[in-house]
């Protein structure tokens, strides 16, 4: 949860224990052959459909349709969560259509850059709880469960070497987290990941976070600019675009707190990742078998307390630990994001996430151990792994919205 923004001095010099480099040029390289065949950038505006499979109810033995969380016959919990939560994405869903459709009138993208834009409006037609029909009022005709809103749980996987999951969690009424990603098809070649966490004490923050993350992604995936700019500059532009988008949401919204959100973006290219952030959403680097690293440093009271010598444990117990000192939105403090470059040439995972995940596992070594253990259980498919980490956070209480974005590097 990102609490009400607190105006406080920021610490632009605080750096994580990764080596800051001079800003490298990470302009997207030439597109890989298969993606390059695309005439134009392509966007899929469909959610990933669930896998069609029949499973017998463990309690009564009745065959149940995929996507149902509860047995229609006896009501037993099938342990699937919401349909999109546990089902692996249909491997045929994303890339196949890429050649079939031309891009709608959307933002221009660099050649070969793949983007999936899920439709997050409206509600499902079938009840996730009992399989009944959802009435026009948005609730199941049979059991009264509100139909899942696509905004409450969505997945983006433009290329198989990365996967991102955004989830409402268990305690919040809305999913105010948002994310937007883009990638080239060839593993490790180029990827952009943006995560924004809406401030729950401000209205419409779910709208602001989605607008901000997509605006930033669109800047990061735009055609190469002439003259070329550095990755740091590009990320700064992306943050500014995100801030503009969040600020525009504030128009017409009443109340003392305009819609606000955090911002973290990672630009991965050829063994290097540049991370930019404003607020307390984070990036971590987990090299296989190496030392886990927290790449970003929160703009928060807790981080400042740590900079003043408190241990992570002590700092995160402070009453205002989660109050962020910088954010995006109409009333945001001025200034570019802080950026850090990290070498991701070794095999490993780059994780970009919101506090809905790291709240339960903040220290990089703990989160790294969780990642390793989870991968041993569910495998290395990025969406499956991101879903499993998200499910884990829900099992810890799901007190906040959870965003988990993984990029396989090396």
């Amino acid at each position: 949860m990102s609490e009400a923004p607190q105006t406080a001095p920021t610490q632009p010099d605080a750096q994580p224990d990764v080596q800051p480099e001079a800003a490298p040029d990470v302009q997207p390289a030439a597109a890989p052959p298969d993606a390059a065949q695309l005439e134009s950038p392509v966007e899929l505006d469909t959610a990933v459909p669930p896998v069609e499979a029949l499973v017998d109810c463990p309690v009564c033995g009745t065959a149940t349709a995929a996507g149902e969380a509860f047995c229609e016959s006896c009501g037993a919990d099938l342990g699937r969560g919401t349909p999109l939560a546990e089902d692996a994405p249909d491997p045929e869903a994303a890339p196949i259509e890429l050649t079939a459709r031309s891009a709608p009138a959307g933002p221009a993208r660099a050649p070969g850059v793949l983007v999936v834009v899920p439709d997050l409006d409206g509600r499902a037609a079938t009840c996730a709880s009992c399989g009944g029909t959802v009435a026009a009022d948005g609730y199941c005709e049979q059991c009264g469960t509100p139909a899942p809103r696509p905004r409450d749980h969505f997945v983006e996987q433009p290329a198989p070497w990365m996967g991102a999951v955004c989830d409402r969690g268990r305690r919040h009424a809305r999913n105010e987290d948002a994310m937007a990603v883009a990638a080239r098809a060839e593993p490790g070649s180029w990827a952009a990941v943006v995560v924004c966490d809406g401030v729950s004490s401000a209205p419409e923050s779910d709208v602001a976070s989605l607008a901000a993350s997509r605006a930033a992604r669109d800047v990061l995936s735009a055609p190469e600019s002439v003259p070329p700019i550095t990755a740091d500059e590009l990320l700064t532009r992306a943050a500014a675009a995100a801030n503009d988008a969040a600020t525009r949401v504030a128009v017409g919204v009443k109340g003392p707190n305009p819609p606000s959100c955090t911002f973290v973006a990672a630009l991965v290219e050829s063994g290097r990742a540049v991370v930019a952030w404003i607020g307390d959403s984070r990036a971590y680097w987990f090299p296989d078998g190496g030392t886990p690293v927290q790449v970003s440093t929160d703009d928060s009271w807790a981080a400042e307390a740590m900079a003043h010598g408190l241990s992570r444990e002590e700092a995160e117990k402070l009453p205002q630990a989660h109050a962020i000192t910088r954010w995006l939105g109409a009333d945001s403090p001025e200034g570019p994001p802080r950026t850090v470059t990290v070498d991701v040439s070794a095999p490993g995972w780059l994780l970009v996430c919101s506090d809905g995940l790291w709240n339960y596992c903040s220290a990089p070594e703990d989160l790294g151990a969780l990642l390793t253990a989870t991968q041993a259980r569910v495998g290395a498919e990025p969406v499956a792994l991101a879903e499993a980490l998200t499910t884990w956070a829900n099992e810890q209480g799901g007190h906040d919205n959870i965003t988990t974005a993984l990029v396989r590097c090396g």
Partner: protein
Amino acid sequence: MADFAAEIYQNEFLPDGGTDVHAIVSVTCTGAGAAGAAEGDEAAEIIIVDTSGSMAGDKIVAAQRAAAVAVDQILDGTWFAVIAGTDGADRAFPYPNAVSPMVRMEPGARAAARQAVSRLVAGGGTAIGSWLRLATQLFQTVPQATQRHAILLTDGKNQSETDEALQAGIRQAKGVFQCDCRGVGADWDVSELRGVATALLGTVDLIPDTASMEQAFADLMQQAMGRGVADAQLRVWAPQGAQVLFVRQVSPQVEDLSARRTDLNPLTGAYPTGAWGDETRDYHVAVRLASKPLGSEQLAARVMVAVRDEVKSQALVKALWSADDTLTTRINPAVAHYTGQAELAEVIQEGLAAKAAGDEATATTKLGRAVQLAEATGNDEATSRLRKVVDIDDPATGTVRLKRGVDKLDEMALDTSSTKTTRVKK
């Protein structure tokens, strides 16, 4: 064309483990028009006048005048008849030798009916069940009339037939017509007549003296003629596994509708509410759900208003389980108000019944509680009626003493008006 709007007043937040959801549904009808005026609608009215021996003297004269005034209020085109009730029932108009059992109102019929009621004579007993049976038969001769309503006037107890005969008459009439009942004087039985009115979706009230009869009849008939919606149905959907604890009308009168339920489908019950004019009625709906984990949301009920099987309005009762005590402990003011008003009606009736049975201790406790509730819910009318039956020492604690030598009419007025509620201040 009548429009219905349904609004919900509730606290949707439930604590961990909470199961019961309470909501007030406020239903407002506008554009109802006049009875029988809508296309395809015809209305029918029957005036039932007690002409037993006890009505002799001033009362029968007043009843003649009151019936004539009611006849005047019946709109042209409305099917109508007048029944004279004794230990049997006679059709006073159309005359017994007339061919058609009911006629349509027009100036000639009005003049003839006025003459017929001026000839009503008192004599004989009281058998309300037989009156209802005749009215049922007459209404059944005009099946084209979708809106059927009767006014029943009596001055005495149902002495000339068994209670079984009365109950049988009520059962036959149920669903055929609506009936508003009025008792004149102090010799009739409030709970007996309330039984008739409740079953037939009508009201019961006291006409304290013969002088008030004309006005009471004029008001009743005017109200009936202003109801252009023949029959509206309240429908309550509750999710699978849930239990509808009760559906209760709470304004303008308290009336438990739970027993009137018929199942439309396994999850939806229909409750008849009779004819509607331009008016607002409030309902208290209570549903028991299986508890869900904190953070879950569930629809607890869909409350619909349907006319001729067409849903005119729908409102949603929701449940949200929350760990936040400041949300879950809040009681919705409308729910609190009407819960108090419903209890007020109950304790007044129980207190008066205990008093009639000679149980003064129970009567004092119940009527004391009534004073307390009337005070708390701002029902000044109830408080002033209670004052005629008890001496109030402290309204806040409900400390009262039973009055000696209470006028029977004051007790009856308190009883008949016990179900009338004040609307919640919004």
